């Protein structure tokens, strides 16, 4: 095995809220309450479980870590001799939105430390960044380095909605080892999804799609990727895109929802796409990028619109999660036959029979939309699938 460099970032307080029933750990208030309730951070322990599987390769792996609890401590305790990168100098504590933890020496760590570490590792050209945390940590990493750098999550947070985590810490270690050894593991984009924690604590589930990270992929060790596909998902997406483009009417403009499947449609036409936003396109040009509800409604004044949409997140929400720009008002003005729902067949199978959901915030509309819908799953391939109101 040739020499490899691996970055490790531990979010020391990830998951602190979970064991004491606090549904997340994103705010200072929650962290303080969690500590009062006797919560112990688990991210380090989880990272150690993953690192153990990498230990046999330790002679060939140079480990890069942020100081102390953000990586150094666990790396040393597992028997690695890591190179410690500097982060503190780059963090302006007073400007940080909130502290996310307290290191051994009483140092507070913040989301900016995570972001800064990720950026430093990307610049250093490591082969892979392993991080131990939850959806919030995944979001920070995505913010820092975008969707074109190999990253893998060790599940340690309360919220594990994103598809960037291995199923267990050990399988994260296993997958990282295989990837670093070049054992036929390939990279693919996976969703970074996060809940709105304030709403979650009030008992509402409001997820947002924040972006995509590029993760090493072997189907059985990634959460929410339970289904193998005979052809790669990229090939299937191209089939879906070809079908959609064949159906697009020249006199219509189309609202193109967020997601990698919808992006393939834009790519095949040769247009740019806002990955987590909504664009308006025709069969040959981009009319408006990253629009909000008002712009969509303004567009509707000028020409009829169609809608190309894919379910977001792991739960199968068609409307109301991550695409709120496509509001009830907008949906009501698009004719049924001009709504094209697209989705990989493997994502439908991963719902394990659960119906697709719609939660537009408009009870009446949700019930109008509910029923059996046609989902485009490939070129000239459809699945008839049940859609119900999720509200």
């Amino acid at each position, binding site marked *: 095995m040739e020499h490899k460099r691996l970055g490790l970032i531990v979010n020391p307080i990830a998951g602190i809220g979970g064991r004491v029933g606090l549904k997340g750990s994103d705010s200072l208030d929650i962290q303080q309450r969690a500590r009062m309730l006797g919560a112990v951070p688990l991210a380090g322990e989880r990272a150690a479980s993953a690192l153990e599987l990498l230990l046999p390769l330790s002679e060939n792996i140079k480990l890069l870590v942020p100081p102390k609890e953000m990586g150094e401590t666990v790396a040393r305790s597992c028997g690695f001799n890591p190179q410690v990168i500097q982060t503190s100098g780059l963090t302006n504590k007073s400007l940080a939105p909130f502290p996310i933890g307290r290191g051994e020496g009483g140092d507070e760590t913040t989301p900016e430390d995570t972001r800064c570490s990720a950026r430093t590792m990307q610049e250093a050209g490591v082969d892979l960044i392993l991080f131990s945390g939850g959806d919030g940590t995944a979001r920070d990493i995505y913010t820092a380095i975008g969707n074109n750098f190999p990253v893998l999550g060790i599940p340690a947070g309360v919220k594990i909605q994103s598809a960037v985590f291995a199923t267990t810490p050990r399988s994260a270690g296993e997958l990282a080892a295989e990837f670093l050894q070049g054992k036929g593991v390939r990279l693919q984009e996976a969703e970074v999804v996060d809940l709105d924690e304030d709403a979650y604590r009030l008992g509402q589930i409001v997820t947002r799609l924040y972006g995509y990270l590029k993760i090493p992929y072997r189907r059985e060790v990634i959460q929410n990727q339970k289904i*193998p596909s005979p052809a*790669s998902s990229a090939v299937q997406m191209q089939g879906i895109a070809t079908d959609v483009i064949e159906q697009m009417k020249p006199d219509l403009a189309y609202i193109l929802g967020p997601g990698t499947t919808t992006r393939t449609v834009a790519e095949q036409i040769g247009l740019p796409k806002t990955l987590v936003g909504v664009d308006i396109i025709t069969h040959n040009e981009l009319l408006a990028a990253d629009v909000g509800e008002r712009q969509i409604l303004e567009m509707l004044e000028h020409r009829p619109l169609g809608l190309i949409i894919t379910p977001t997140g792991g739960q199968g929400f068609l409307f109301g999660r991550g695409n709120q720009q496509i509001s009830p008002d907008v949906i009501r003005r698009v004719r049924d036959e001009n709504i094209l729902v697209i989705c990989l*067949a493997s994502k439908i199978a991963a719902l394990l029979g659960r119906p697709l959901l719609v939660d537009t915030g408009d009870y009446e509309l949700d019930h109008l939309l509910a029923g059996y819908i046609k989902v485009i799953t490939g070129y000239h*391939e459809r699945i008839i*699938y049940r859609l119900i109101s999720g509200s």
Partner: protein
Amino acid sequence: MKPINPKPSPRRYHQASWDEPVIFELSQPGQRGVLLPPVETEIEQEVGNPAQMLPDQLRRTVPPALPEMSQVHVLRHYDRISQENLGVDLNIDIGQGTCTMKYSPKINDQLAHTHKLTELHPLQDFSTVQGILEVMYRLEGMLKEISGMDRFSLQPGAGGAAIYANICMMRAHHASRGEGKQRDEVITTIFSHPSNAAAAKVAGYKVITLYPDSEGYPDLEALKAAVSERTASLLITNPEDTGIFNPKIAEFTRIVHEAGGICSYDQANANGILGITRAREAGFDLCHFNLHKTFSTPHGCGGPGAGASGVTEKLIPFLPVPTTEFDGQKYYLDYNRPKSIGKIRPFYGVTANILRSYAWIMSLGADGLREVAEIAVLNNNYLLKKVLEIRGVSAPYAKGKRRVEQVRYSWEQLTQETGVHSEEIEIRVTDFGMHYWTSHHPFVVPEPMTLEPTESYSKADLDEYVAVLNQISVEAYTNPEIIKTAPHNCTVHQTQQEPFDNPDEWAVTWRAYRRKTGKK
């Protein structure tokens, strides 16, 4: 004399490993298996040089790049790699669900190998091939009785070819009514054989797939949402690959007929319903059998399979040519059928398998066929009971109900509790000299395993298979590493499936392998 020690259960198996190279690597320039004698002078004078008689465009300019080997080296090579294989006659082959891996009686092979069949030429005069034509005609009659259809074609080379032929007939039917363009959608279900969707795609149709309802039955409401004036056909398997019989099947065909569609029955899973229920009574217009599944002939990988396409009266004109006819005195092939979809295979069809299935059905009779179905169902439900006693296995859907001839099980609980996946068990099973199959893609049943015991296996066989699955379950809970690192006693490898998506990383011919690896 010392008594022989009793053998432990499960048996201790170890496969031969020969580390055998690819045959092309064994080639030695100049070696020959057969030395052909030179043409005698008087023969050459009489007929000339045969090579010169070939048209230029048919003559090779470069000799074929075949391996150069002696006979004994060829024989040794294939004997060795056959020992690194696992065949239907070697293991308890109940693990390849949906494929109906029943025993193919060897006497039927002897019939198929007799020179009376092997020495026939397809262009012989009909008067000299009355025997095989009679067999074809009579087999068609039996299949008509078994299914209730009005005619059959034995032309298709296998199940997928039969489905494709049925789709072509269905298309010709719609075209004859001026609805060919309008009807461009076919409907199938996710637990029907994917060959239905695949063949329809090849024929240019849009494919709509129905997902099951919460009980695992094909969803009638979804069907109602799917049918329209664009519906060309319903292509459905019943019982589906879950082993669940669709009790509303007659309603399915009625709804599709009302929309003007044609209903085509994939009878690949017919082994549990022979003599019990028929395609005609369920309202189907077309059906097909796999002779290599239900009627015991060897499967495709061990020689050609064979399919049989059945039609009701209104589709008879569209049958592929030739059909086998009898004018009261002699049998003949009829090519003069103006509305036919044409040829789908040269000459007679797979005659060796037509003869084998004919012999198989004749040896059983009508009552025997029903007994086949009853024992296949009995075996399956015995197996279901025993498998469900194994820790970590479940049989999703239709809770508390019995199944027809196969079951799609799930190891989901075992996976959650031990981290061991069905695809890993699939490899571990080979360490016991056995085999099992997961499921078609996508995996709608999580961590799937599909078993179909057929009528051929004894209770002791089923118990032995169950003992192996049980052993592996125990290993998963106590020593999962032994499964994760399998195989230990077998020559299969842990395959990396990722490169399958990338044509640069695989080759199906030696020439492509050399090109893609840059090897000379």
